[in-house]
């Protein structure tokens, strides 16, 4: 029983079950799984532009997934990546529209702003946790909705571009666009930033004192506290950094893909990223691999719908099942004891 449970509660088991479920969804929709999967993978990996689009989705998922990884490793349940992503994108879009600077300067400024904004948003939950003992699961979740309302208010009202047909900010000047890796696609250098960040995060987690303390707090908070880790500082810092990574991701979507900001920035990347982080077993490098896998699902899902008539929403059911299966493993020590001191 134990071996069975371990096998199927691991990422491999989840993937196997997900593939089976996907096949089932295709059969229910009256499509042979072979046709369905070939449409899925053909759409995601069939040509240069398809691969580029898959990598765009990969990048969009990778940033929040890395942010979530950091928070989970630190024992904090950040389910607010969606809001942090949005706020980061909002900051980049609001300032980027009026920023006329050389590309390198603009990129640094806008991505930095996105990271700061996301960091503030995440740090807010961290501050509430550190000083008021407010459960971060609920606060990060609630802040998602506050972020959505704020963004919606700003793009409908003060930040709305008079030229735009929809509710969005003025477009970014070309000089503020992130350079593309593959011409005529939407794939910008943001994927390189994300991968570099993954290596950096792994280094920080495994090779620095800060990372050691962060993991200690995550795995044995009481031991960490007794060994002199400043729990309050660690709490808000972890969530702020986690939010900053997601915010940076939001800024790369604005500067690299959308070139404007509106509330359609994320179709739920921040939530899917939880699954990505868990499938990647909270190891930044494996998270990259997992993000690529989910990127295939996200971009191939559309092709699967168009070519094989399998509704793309089946993808979300599959993602949900993966999350459900992986929930059987404990990632975050549930902390119920009183205020961190």
């Amino acid at each position: 029983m134990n071996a069975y449970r371990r096998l199927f509660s691991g990422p491999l088991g989840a993937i196997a079950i997900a593939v089976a479920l996907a096949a089932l969804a295709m059969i229910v929709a009256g499509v042979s799984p072979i046709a369905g999967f070939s449409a899925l993978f053909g759409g995601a990996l069939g040509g240069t532009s398809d691969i580029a689009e898959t990598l765009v989705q990969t990048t969009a998922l990778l940033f929040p997934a890395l942010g979530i990884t950091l928070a989970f490793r630190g024992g904090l349940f950040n389910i607010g990546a969606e809001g942090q992503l949005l706020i980061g994108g909002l900051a980049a879009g609001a300032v980027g529209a009026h920023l006329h600077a050389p590309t390198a300067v603009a990129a640094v400024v806008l991505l930095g702003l996105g990271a700061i904004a996301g960091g503030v948003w995440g740090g807010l939950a961290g501050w509430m946790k550190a000083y008021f003992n407010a459960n971060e699961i609920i606060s990060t979740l609630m802040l998602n909705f506050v972020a959505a309302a704020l963004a919606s208010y700003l793009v409908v009202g003060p930040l709305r571009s008079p030229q735009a047909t929809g509710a969005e900010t003025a477009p970014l000047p070309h000089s503020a666009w992130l350079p593309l890796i593959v011409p005529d696609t939407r794939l910008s250098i943001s994927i390189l930033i994300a991968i570099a960040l993954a290596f950096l995060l792994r280094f920080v987690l495994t090779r620095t004192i800060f990372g050691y303390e962060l993991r200690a707090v995550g795995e044995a908070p009481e031991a960490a506290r007794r060994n002199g880790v400043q729990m309050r500082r660690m709490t808000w810092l972890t969530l702020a950094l986690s939010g900053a990574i997601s915010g940076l991701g939001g800024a790369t979507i604005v500067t690299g893909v959308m070139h404007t900001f509106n509330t359609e920035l994320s179709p739920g990347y921040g939530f899917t990223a939880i699954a990505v982080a868990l499938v990647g077993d909270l190891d930044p490098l494996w998270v990259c691999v997992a993000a690529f896998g989910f990127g295939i699902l996200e971009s191939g899902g559309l092709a699967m719908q168009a070519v094989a008539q399998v509704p793309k929403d089946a993808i979300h059911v599959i993602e949900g099942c993966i999350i459900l299966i992986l929930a059987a493993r404990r990632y975050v020590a549930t902390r119920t004891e009183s205020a961190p001191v």
Partner: protein
Amino acid sequence: MMDFVHGALATLVLLTLVKSAPIVYAALGGVISERSGIVNIGLEGMMTGGAFAAVVASYATGNAAVGLVAGVAVGALLGFVLGYGATKFKVDQIVAGMGINLIAAGGAAYGLVLLYNQPGASPQVHALGRWYWLLILFAFVCAFALHHVLYRTPWGLRVRACGENPRAVTSAGLDPLRFRLYAAVISGALAGLGGAFLSIGEVNIYSEGMTAGRGFIALAAVIFGRWTPWGATGAAVFFGFFEALQFVLQGRVAWLPSEAMQALPYLAALVALCGLVGKVRAPASDGVPY
């Protein structure tokens, strides 16, 4: 002017009741599961599942009552998934709840295309008609019943004990996991009922995203109401009032953006969470597998 004020007030009161009811149902669901020790982030998904199932069943049978039952049943089923996972496999309840939300939203969207071949919204179905006023009333009956059960019956005492100290329940010779499983199923059923109210009560279709975060608002209501049935109900009505106010004031009060009112339940929950409105304490073993 006076006529408008009177009309608006009457509308506001009625609309508050209509808008509160689904949140009350889901919030009561949240109270019972959290009091038993299971955090239910999946309320939103259970509402979605209930809303969609109600429409599917009403469409298939032409009978809205069947739809209502189906909504409750699917909600309960999703509650069972959470409860079974939480008790049998000790899953991380937060992660599992998020999974349920994704499955329900994706499943409903998949079902729309598969069953009706139209993404976005279902065809029109038979709705509950006037019965839905009864359903609004029933929400408050449920609040009363849950209060009574939790505080005045042995079963309720045991459920609360499971949320505070499951070991004590074990040492009394009872199985806390069973109570938790029941509580999760009831929680799902209530959320499913709230969802069904949205789709075949208020309107007569299912449209994608129609729950619009009400499951999460209910979660906020649970916290704001300090994990008690009446508290959560009061908070749900409070949030329902602001939703109704948004409709009544639409376009009339320019200085107050509607987004501010949309954000209000969440801000209220954040304030409560910080302990700024009296002491807020979750059940001691809430979310801790046993």
